[in-house]
C-alpha cells in the first residue's frame, strides 16, 4: 500500500496506463546505446561499473600490502615493488574510486531526479566526463603495466620530479585528465541545482544529499584545477627540464606540497560530504522522522566546504613551513571539526522517538556514525601541533584517514548503493545477506585499522616495507582484519549482481521514503518523470507519509466497497 499514493497521483493526471512500462534500462538496447547515451542514469551506471573495477584493482593492491606486512622482513616483494604497490593502491583508491565514487554514481543518478529535472544541465558534458575518467584511468593503468610509479599518491618533489625512476609523467597525465572529469561533474551539478529545480522546490526543500553534493561540487570546481596545475608543473619539470620546484635552481620543493594539499585536503571533503548526504537520507528514512536540524546540516556542508580550503597546511606541520603558518592551519583545522560534530549530533537526535528499521542501509549508516566518530575525533590528534609532530607520517595517520575515507565514505557509499539499488535497478537485494555483510565490513574494518593507531603512536612510519619487529603484532592483526574486510566487500558484489536477475521486484517506493526520486517508477523512465513534478511540501515529511499510508488502508477499502 506504500505505493498507492504515487500511483493514485500519477493516474489522476491520466498520463500513464498500466501496461508494461519502458524505463531507462530497457528504453534502448545494444552496447552503442550505452556508450553514446546522454542519460544521466545510464552514465551513472557506466561510472558504477568502472569505479567498481578500479576499486577491485585498488583492493587487490591493498591485499598485497597487507600480505607483505605480516612479517617485518621482505617476504613477497622487493622494496621497489612494494613502493609501487602502495603507490598504486593510493592512486587507484583516491583518484579513481573515492573522489568519483558517490558524486559520479549516486549523485549522477539522483541529483537530477531529486531536483525534479529530466537530466543534468549538460548531458553531453556528463558523458564526456565519463570518457575523460576512463581515458585517465587507462593512462594510469598503462603506466602500471609499463613498470609502475613509486612516488606515493602525493608525488612529493623533488623525488617525483627528479629522482624517481617510475612512470611519473604518464601517471601524472592520467590524473590530470581525470581531474577534468571531476571538474565537469561538479560544474554540471552546480548548474543543475541552481537552474533546474522543479517548481516549488526551494533551496530549503532540497534533500540534504543534494546539498552535500552541491558543497562537494564547489570543492571540485575550485580545488581540482590547482592540483592539476601542480601536476602539470611536475610533468614539465620531468619532461622538459623546467625547474619550478628544483632546489638546485633555488626552487622550493615545499611549494609543491602547498599546491598539492590545497586541493588534496579539500578532496577529502569531496569524498566525505556526499557520504554525509547519503547518511542524512538514510537516517531520516529509517527513523521515519523529519531530519533533525535540517538547516544546520545543510549549512554545515557548506561550512566544511569553505573552511576546508583553509586547512591544507596541517599536512605540513613538520615540513619546514613557518611555525606561525602551522598555528593558523591548526586553528582552522580545529574549527572545521565543529560542522562535522553538528552533523553527528543532529543524526543522533533524528533517531529520538523514531521508528527505527534495521535495514541494510541503516546498518551501514549506523556503522558510518561509529567509524566517522573515531575518524573525526582522531583528526583532533592530527590537528593539534604538539601531538602531530610525533604522529605525522606514521601509521596513526594511515589509520585516521582510513577511518574517514573507508569507514566514512565507503560505508556511506555501500549504504547508498543498497538504499537506492531498488530505484536504480528495480530489484531488491537479499536483505539477510545485506545485513550480514554490513556487519562483516564493520568488524573487519575495525580489526584492520584500529591496531594501526597503536602501531602509529608507537612510531611505525608509513610507507615502510620492512619494519622493526616490535610492530609486528599490530600488523598481523591488521592483515587478519583486511581478510575479513575483503570478504565483507566481496559478498555485496556477488549478491547485488545476483539480484539483477533474481532479486524481488521493487515497487516505486519500497522504503516508503520521502523525496522526488521515490515518486517516479523504479527504474525511472528515461526522462525521470512522466509528468512535471511539483513540490508542495517540506522535505522528509515522514510523519505525513506514515499517517497517509495508515489512513489509505482504511479509506481505500471504504472506497472500494462504495465502488462495488
Amino acid at each position, binding site marked *: 500500500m506504500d505505493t498507492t499514493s504515487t500511483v493514485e497521483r500519477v493516474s489522476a493526471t491520466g498520463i500513464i496506463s498500466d501496461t508494461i512500462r519502458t524505463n531507462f534500462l530497457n528504453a534502448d538496447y545494444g552496447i552503442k546505446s550505452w556508450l553514446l547515451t546522454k542519460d544521466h542514469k545510464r552514465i551513472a551506471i557506466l561510472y558504477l561499473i568502472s569505479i567498481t573495477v578500479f576499486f577491485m584493482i585498488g583492493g587487490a593492491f591493498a591485499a598485497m600490502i597487507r600480505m607483505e606486512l605480516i612479517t617485518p622482513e621482505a617476504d613477497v616483494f622487493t*622494496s*621497489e615493488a612494494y*613502493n609501487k604497490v602502495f603507490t598504486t593502491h593510493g592512486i587507484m583508491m583516491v583518484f579513481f574510486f573515492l573522489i568519483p565514487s558517490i558524486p559520479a554514481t549516486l549523485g549522477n543518478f539522483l541529483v537530477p531526479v531529486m531536483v525534479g529535472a529530466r537530466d543534468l544541465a549538460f548531458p553531453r558534458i556528463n558523458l564526456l566526463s565519463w570518457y575523460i575518467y576512463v581515458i585517465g584511468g587507462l593512462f594510469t593503468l598503462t603506466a602500471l603495466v609499463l613498470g609502475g610509479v*613509486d612516488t*606515493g599518491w*602525493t608525488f*612529493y618533489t*623533488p623525488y617525483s620530479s*627528479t*629522482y*624517481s625512476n617510475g612512470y611519473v609523467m604518464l601517471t601524472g597525465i592520467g590524473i590530470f585528465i581525470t581531474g577534468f572529469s571531476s571538474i565537469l561533474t561538479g560544474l554540471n551539478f552546480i548548474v543543475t541545482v541552481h537552474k533546474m529545480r522543479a517548481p516549488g522546490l526551494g533551496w530549503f526543500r532540497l534533500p540534504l544529499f543534494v546539498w552535500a553534493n552541491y558543497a562537494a561540487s564547489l570543492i571540485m570546481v575550485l580545488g581540482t584545477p590547482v592540483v592539476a596545475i601542480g601536476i602539470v608543473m611536475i610533468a614539465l619539470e620531468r619532461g622538459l627540464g623546467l625547474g619550478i620546484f628544483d*632546489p*638546485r635552481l*633555488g626552487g*622550493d*620543493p615545499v611549494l609543491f606540497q602547498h599546491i598539492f594539499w590545497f586541493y588534496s585536503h579539500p578532496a577529502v571533503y569531496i569524498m566525505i560530504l556526499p557520504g554525509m548526504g547519503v547518511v542524512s537520507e538514510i537516517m531520516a528514512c529509517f527513523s521515519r522522522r523529519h531530519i533533525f*536540524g535540517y538547516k544546520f546540516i545543510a549549512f554545515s556542508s557548506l561550512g566544511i566546504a569553505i573552511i576546508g580550503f583553509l586547512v591544507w597546511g596541517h599536512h605540513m606541520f*613538520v*615540513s*619546514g613551513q613557518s*611555525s606561525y603558518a602551522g598555528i593558523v592551519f*591548526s586553528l582552522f583545522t*580545529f*574549527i572545521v*571539526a*565543529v560542522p562535522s*560534530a*553538528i552533523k553527528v549530533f543532529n543524526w*543522533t*537526535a533524528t*533517531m*529520538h*522517538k523514531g*521508528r*527505527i*528499521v*534495521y535495514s541494510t542501509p541503516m546498518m551501514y549508516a549506523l556503522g558510518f*556514525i561509529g567509524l566517522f566518530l573515531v575518524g573525526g575525533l*582522531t583528526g*583532533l*590528534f592530527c*590537528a*593539534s601541533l*604538539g*601531538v602531530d*609532530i*610525533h604522529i*605525522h*607520517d606514521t601509521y596513526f595517520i594511515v589509520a585516521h584517514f582510513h577511518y574517514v575515507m573507508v569507514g566514512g565514505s565507503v560505508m556511506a557509499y555501500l549504504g547508498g548503493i543498497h538504499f537506492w539499488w531498488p530505484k536504480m535497478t528495480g530489484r531488491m537485494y537479499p536483505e539477510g545477506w545485506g545485513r550480514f555483510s554490513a556487519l562483516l565490513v564493520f568488524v573487519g574494518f575495525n580489526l584492520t585499522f584500529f591496531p594501526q593507531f597503536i602501531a602509529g*603512536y*608507537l*612510531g611505525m*612510519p*608509513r*610507507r*615502510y*616495507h*620492512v619494519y*622493526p619487529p616490535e610492530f609486528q*603484532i599490530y600488523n598481523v592483526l591488521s592483515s587478519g582484519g583486511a581478510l575479513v574486510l575483503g570478504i565483507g566487500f566481496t559478498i555485496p558484489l556477488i549478491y547485488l549482481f545476483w539480484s539483477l536477475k533474481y532479486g524481488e521486484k521493487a515497487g516505486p517506493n519500497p522504503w516508503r521514503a520521502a523525496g522526488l526520486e521515490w515518486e517516479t517508477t523504479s527504474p525511472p523512465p528515461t526522462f525521470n518523470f512522466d509528468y512535471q513534478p511539483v513540490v508542495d511540501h517540506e522535505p522528509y515529511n515522514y510523519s505525513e507519509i506514515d499517517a497517509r499510508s495508515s489512513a489509505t488502508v482504511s479509506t481505500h477499502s471504504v472506497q472500494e466497497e462504495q465502488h462495488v
Partner: protein
Amino acid sequence: MWNFPLLPDQASTFAGRVDGLYFFLVALTAFFTVMISLMVAFMAIRYRETNTKVNRDNPLPENPTMEAVWIGVPLVIVLVIFFWGVNIYFAIARPPANAVDMYVTGKQWMWKIQHPTGQREINEMHVAVGQPVRLTMISQDVIHSFYVPAFRVKQDVLPGRYSQLWFEPTKPGIYHLFCAEFCGTKHSGMIGRVVVMEPADYERWLAGGSSNGGSLGQTMADAGAQIFETQGCITCHKMDDASRAPILKGLYGKSVTLNGGETVTADEQYIRESILRSGAKIVAGYGPIMPVYQNRISEDELMQLVSYIKSLGGPATGTPAATPSAAPASEAKGTPAAAKPAQNVNEPSRNK
C-alpha cells in the same frame, strides 16, 4: 611478538608533555565515541519499529538552543586542545640557548651526523642525557624526515635549505631513528639508532672516538677553516680588511643590510646561500664578484664552513653553543692541518 606495547619509550623532555595531551585526547575520543554510540544504540533498540509500546509522543522539537550547545561545546573543547597543542609546539620549535649544535645530512638512504668536535657517524647518533641538542639538518637529494619516536620529535630534512630540530634526552638507552618522509626505494632502510648515554660515558665516547666512522681528526670549525683556506675564501674575506669582501668575524646572528636596502639575519641558512649562490643576497656596498660555489662543495663541507663562520663569534652576546670549546677540540689541534678529515667517505652517488 605476543606482547602489546602501547607507547614508545619516553626518553626526552617532550615525551611526557606530548603523551599528556595524547592521553587527554584518547580519553576525549573514548568518551564521545562511547557516549554517542550508546545513545545511538539505546535509541535504535528502544525506538525499534517493532516496539509499539514505547511512547513516541512529543519528539524533540527543532531547538536552536540545543544546536547552539552542540556547536559551542565542541568549539570550546577544540580550542582548549588547540592552545594545549600550540604550547607544546612552541617548546619543540624553540631550542634553548645552552643546546649543543650537531649537524645532520640526509641522503638516499642514510643519515650522516657530524659532531662539532669532529666525530662523524653514519646512521647512529650519540648524545648525552640532560644535554639539549640542536640539529641543523639538510638533505643532499630528496626530502627526508628525521624522526625519533622516543623523543616525540620529527622534522623534514629538505634539500637546499637548513631545517632545525632540538631535543633533550632524559633516559639512557638505544632508540630508533627513522626516516619518516618517503624518499625512494630503500626508504624503510633509512633507519638508525640514537644512543643516549650518561654524561660521563658520553665524554668517554667523545674522547675515544672509536665509534662507527668517527674520526677525531679536527673539530668541524677547524675543518671549515681549512676549507676556507683551500677554496681561497680567505683571499677576499680577510679578518681585518673589508675592502674586497665583508669581514666574517662576528657575522653570525647579526642583522645584515643588503644592496637592495632590505635586512636579513645572518643565520645558517643565509651563510649557506651566500656561499652557494653568492649573488642572491649581496651585502650593501659590495659588487657581485664572488664566484658561485654551487656543485663545487659538498653539503658536509658546507656545514663545516658554516660551523667555522659561526665559531668566529656572533654580535654582542656571542653564540654560547656555537663554538665547541670542549677538551677534545684542543686535543685535535695537535694533528697536522694537512690531515684532511674523511669528509668524502660517502659522497653522493648521484651527481646531478
